């Protein structure tokens, strides 16, 4: 079963269009949504949560259309947005009390265990938290009501590397259960590379690709050559080019690279940057 399916999703604002987005997140998987500022990541999250109206397309979350009694479906969704949204005058204990009467499946013991695990003070006001601490509280709430799907919009930004690693481990742990899934957007591609099973590239409202992370690594490579040598590679196999004083670098499909051309492995971040720039150059 798929935890989430997005088909042909469109949404237009003045100056921005989310253009026929297709995404499928299988259960038990983590999908990373990569994109620059304004690529449409937050718009996609808001559309999934039905916080904004889509122009067309369908969104199915945990097997149900997200316009069909979505309140009940949201019982099974944990959400962390880039701005956490907890009232600044409340402390973690009070937040727990509010959530206890918000989620039917709220697990007080799990919540306080996460507070301890993530070193979140129970009685300190939210406004006195650091950004990282605020994120951690949002994550603790999202994980404490037996959610099946986590929607995380820039949930690791602002966290120091040690805490980020700790949080990423928690997300990986979360998807050990087959019925769980995570959709996470982030600027920090290395984070996504670390934990995601699928990677989706969003650029200026368009989905450049959505693929299994391991297949991306297997499929693509960076070639370092001259412009003339690059001409030997079919243009359909080239996903992005960067020119410099010494020649060209390009992301290409591994199998289409002729012998004799120097290659190096492509990271997800490089792949995204090349593809985004290639798209801009069109």
């Amino acid at each position, binding site marked *: 079963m798929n935890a989430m399916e997005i088909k042909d999703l469109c949404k237009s604002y003045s100056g921005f269009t989310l253009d026929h987005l297709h995404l499928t997140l299988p259960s038990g998987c983590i999908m990373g949504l990569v994109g620059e500022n304004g690529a449409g990541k937050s718009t996609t999250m*808001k559309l999934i*949560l*039905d*916080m*904004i*109206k889509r122009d067309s397309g369908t969104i199915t979350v945990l097997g149900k259309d997200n316009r069909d009694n979505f*309140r*009940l479906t*949201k*019982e099974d*969704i944990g*959400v962390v*947005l880039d*701005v*956490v*949204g*907890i*009232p*600044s*005058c*409340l402390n973690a204990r*009070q937040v727990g*009390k*509010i*959530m*206890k*009467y*918000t*989620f*039917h499946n709220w697990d007080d013991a799990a919540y306080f265990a996460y507070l301890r695990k993530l070193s979140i003070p129970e009685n300190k006001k939210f406004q006195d938290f650091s950004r990282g601490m605020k994120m951690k509280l949002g994550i603790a709430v999202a994980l404490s009501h037996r959610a099946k799907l986590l*929607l995380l919009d820039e949930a690791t930004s602002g966290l120091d590397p040690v805490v980020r690693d700790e949080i990423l481990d928690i997300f990986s742990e979360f998807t050990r259960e087959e019925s769980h899934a995570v959709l996470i957007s982030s600027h920090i591609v290395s984070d996504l590379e670390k934990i995601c099973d699928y990677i989706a590239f969003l650029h200026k409202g368009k989905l450049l690709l959505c693929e299994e992370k391991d297949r991306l690594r297997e499929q693509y490579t960076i070639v370092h050559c001259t412009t003339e040598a690059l001409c030997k590679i079919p243009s359909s196999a080239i996903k992005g080019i960067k020119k410099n004083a010494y020649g060209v670098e390009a992301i290409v499909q591994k199998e289409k690279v002729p012998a004799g051309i120097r290659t190096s492995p492509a990271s997800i971040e490089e792949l995204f940057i090349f593809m985004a720039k290639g798209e801009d150059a069109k």
Partner: protein
Amino acid sequence: MRGLLIKDLYLICKYGRAFILIVAVFIVVSFMGDGNMFFISYPCIISGLLPMTLIAYDERDKWDMYAGGLPYTKTQLVCGKYVIGLSMSVLVLAAIAIAEAFRMHNAQVFAVSSYLNLLLLLFSISLLVPSLMLPFVFKFGAEKGRVIYYVIIALTCVGSTAFVRTGTNITIFVSNAGIYSVLAASIFLYVMSWLLSVCFYKKREI
């Protein structure tokens, strides 16, 4: 919806201290005075403003966005504000009712019908402010909705001044003003406002 109400109660406890103090001062002043309508009605007006204040704090903290990801419908999010506003208005009215009963008794002007009429009038006043303001706030947000607040305050000041200039005694007014019609109109307006706010908020993109 219980979680929403608990959250708003926490916010009132934290941010509403000035509100509680103002209400207390006005009630004490009205208790010591001669039934001046301004001192009695002002706490009702500001209690009606509480939901708008709560919405402004929600928007500042981005709670409105966060709540969109919680298992609440937009209807519940709107209803939470109307319920908390109504509850606070009733509480303030109860405090005024006790103070007014003592004042009227001490001044030996206590009459059950005029006392009840006064309370019904005050209740109508407390419904009026949120009825007029909340639909705008739910449609445009607290920042733009504040314009409506200033318009209402200006109208209240003009109305109060005009009322004082007529030299009308409040006791006479409440016994002769067709208070039940005023109450019915206020309740109707409140219900319409509630439905309109739900309609506006459902269409609003957060």
